């Protein structure tokens, strides 16, 4: 070991030569990365539609918008279509696009063969479209988060193999020098996802796993999907963008390393905490609970590291929308991690298991944490890729506030409603119908919250479409930062150019 394993990211790309270097890298990956980012926005819109449909059906089962008699618009199909579009369409496309961009940036190499990733994007989108149509027509596998039938899963896997090889090639061709923790997270995420997605599909959908093993494999997969695919992508992004945005190296590399390895160790074990009391050997459940409680360690390591890196720089939040999204996302990660540990202990799970509390927790992770960080990354990356600026600070601002208020309201409704539901279920004197009545108002609030989030997503999509379609010349500083009148006069050039 001759050099430190990870070092500070290049926050001071001082010379003009290095800057032009970075933009030549950006130009080389522009098309494939933009295709993935745009696919993400497209599927986010599809997901939003089904999200609004499902969340408005759940409290008023007789309303006209339940479309009585129309199977493919019913809750049991709209809900999985929403989740799958959200995770594989939005989150995964965005994650691939941002992850590849980060690897190219940090490896400081331009991309040579853009054709393969473009092919991968086309294949991936085909897979999702096939999967969504299959679920709508009732050809689901019945395994949560793996609803897409084997043929769609196979298409998706093919696409991901190309993506994974693409990522590895970029990493291998990187310029010699120390690697940064973001590269670890992103690379780990790509390796883990190809493993979890292929083995889960092979075990469950290509071969027939013995009945009692199916839920175990299914929840091993879901836990890994959240903790070892989405989480490392978002953390890798935040580890790159936070130091960039506040112009400081990350506070502690040791802490970053510790966070990475403890996540790698624990991430695969957390899913089965959703099945406490289920028909499994006791050690499987106990090990999962222990892992989920220990997840406090990587969560706190990341939280402390981000906090200490940004210490004293929080006033930047006032004018830097990218930082705002990232900071809210990072805070949501801490909350998500701590809540996850809490609701996985046996005592609390007795109440919260099977209730909307777990739905709220999942949304805190998917939207509050992952999506917020990725939104921030979009706002940072897209202008650099296109060498354009965001046209519409209003859309960005409303995207942010609708998202924050929406996720807050959603969390409130699902957590409080879920707790009432949990205490109701716990008391055998209270009938199931009475429990439904008790949580009715909260399901309505939940619907309003989802509406806010859908509006936020639409604002995001419009901003994205505008920057794609309308060419506005770059000014010296990017529009995101200039959008606010409070922007300080002197802004370090590396924030805007690199």
């Amino acid at each position: 070991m001759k050099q430190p394993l990870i070092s500070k990211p290049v926050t001071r790309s001082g010379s003009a030569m290095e800057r032009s270097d970075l933009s030549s890298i950006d130009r080389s990956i522009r098309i494939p990365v933009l295709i993935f980012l745009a696919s993400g926005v497209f599927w986010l819109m599809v997901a939003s539609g089904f999200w609004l449909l499902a969340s408005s059906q759940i409290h008023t089962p007789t309303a006209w918008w339940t479309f009585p008699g129309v199977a493919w618009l019913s809750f049991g199909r709209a809900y999985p279509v929403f989740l799958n579009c959200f995770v594989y369409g939005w989150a995964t496309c965005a994650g691939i696009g941002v992850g590849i961009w980060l690897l190219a940036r940090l490896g400081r190499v331009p991309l040579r063969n853009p054709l393969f990733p473009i092919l991968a994007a086309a294949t991936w989108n085909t897979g999702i479209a096939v999967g969504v149509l299959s679920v709508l027509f009732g050809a689901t596998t019945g395994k949560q988060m793996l609803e897409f039938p084997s043929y769609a899963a196979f298409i998706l896997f093919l696409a991901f193999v190309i993506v994974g090889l693409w990522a590895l090639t970029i990493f291998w061709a990187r310029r010699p020098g120390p690697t940064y923790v973001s590269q670890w997270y992103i690379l780990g995420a790509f390796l883990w996802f190809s493993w979890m997605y292929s083995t889960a599909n092979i075990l469950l959908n290509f071969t027939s796993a013995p009945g009692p093993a199916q839920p175990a494999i299914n929840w091993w997969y879901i836990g890994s999907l959240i903790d070892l695919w989405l989480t490392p992508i978002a953390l890798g992004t935040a580890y790159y963008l936070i130091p960039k945005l506040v112009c400081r190296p990350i506070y502690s590399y040791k802490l970053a390393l510790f966070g990475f390895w403890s996540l790698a160790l624990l991430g695969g074990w957390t899913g089965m905490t959703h099945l406490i009391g289920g028909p499994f050997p006791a050690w499987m459940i106990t090990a999962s609970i222990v892992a989920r409680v220990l997840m406090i360690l990587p969560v706190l390591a990341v939280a402390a590291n981000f906090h200490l890196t940004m210490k004293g720089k929080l006033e930047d939040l006032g004018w830097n929308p990218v930082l705002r999204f990232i900071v809210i996302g990072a805070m949501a990660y801490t909350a998500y991690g701590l809540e996850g540990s809490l609701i996985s202990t046996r005592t609390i799970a007795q109440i919260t298991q099977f209730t909307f509390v777990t739905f709220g927790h999942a949304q805190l992770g998917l939207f509050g944490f992952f999506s917020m960080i990725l939104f921030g990354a979009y706002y940072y990356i897209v202008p650099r890729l296109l060498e354009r600026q965001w046209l519409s600070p209003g859309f960005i601002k409303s995207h942010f506030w609708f998202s924050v208020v929406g996720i807050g309201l959603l969390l409130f409704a699902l957590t409080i409603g879920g707790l009432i539901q949990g205490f109701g279920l716990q008391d055998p004197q209270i009938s199931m119908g009475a429990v439904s009545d008790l949580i009715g108002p909260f399901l309505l609030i939940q619907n309003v919250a989802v509406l806010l989030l859908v509006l936020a997503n639409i604002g995001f999509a419009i901003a994205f479409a505008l920057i794609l379609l309308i060419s506005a010349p770059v000014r010296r500083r990017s529009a995101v930062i200039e959008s606010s009148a409070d922007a300080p006069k002197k802004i370090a050039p590396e924030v805007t150019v690199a």
Partner: protein
Amino acid sequence: MNRLTGLFFGVFLLFGLSWLALAAYPYIAFAGLQQSKDEATGALAPLGNPGTADQGARVYAANGCFYCHSQYVRDKHEGSDIERKWGKRRTVARDYMFDREVFLGTSRLGADLTNAGDRQTDSQWFCRVLYNPRAMTPESVMPAYRWLFRTQEIQGQPSADAVKLEGTDAPPPGHEVVPTAEGRALVDYLLSRKKTYPLPEAPEPTE
């Protein structure tokens, strides 16, 4: 071995541990489950599912029933499932050995269905709930699964499995509502949901 090789090995090895324990192990171990044999009577338990139940499981999946209904009973000290009369004992891996598809479920917006076929033994009851849940439980938020039924003109004698519907749900005179093949399979599946036999590893809790 340089540190990057270490990174790759570490990434695979650490994740591999969870894969071995939570995916590979149950896949192999649960394939070897055997029926239990009662010492006194020689009765085997559990027994396989009747013919159309497996097709019904497909309908159960296709319509997303498992997003709101669970199918397992927790032990007495882990929740109120037994007090709610969702089962007399907890369920264990062996209970599911004949189910080709297992839907444990993680939400209980609806009732647990582990023993649905024990609580209700009449296919009429299930048909009426699926056709209009509010007719049976006014507060229910369950969707109505109308596409599992069809309205047809009565030819001679009314069909044996015609659904008895009242009020606004009743079909026009001279017509009847019958479950489609899918609907019938789903009802068979629900009727097959009963884990009432004793198993040595899951005794009924005593006070």
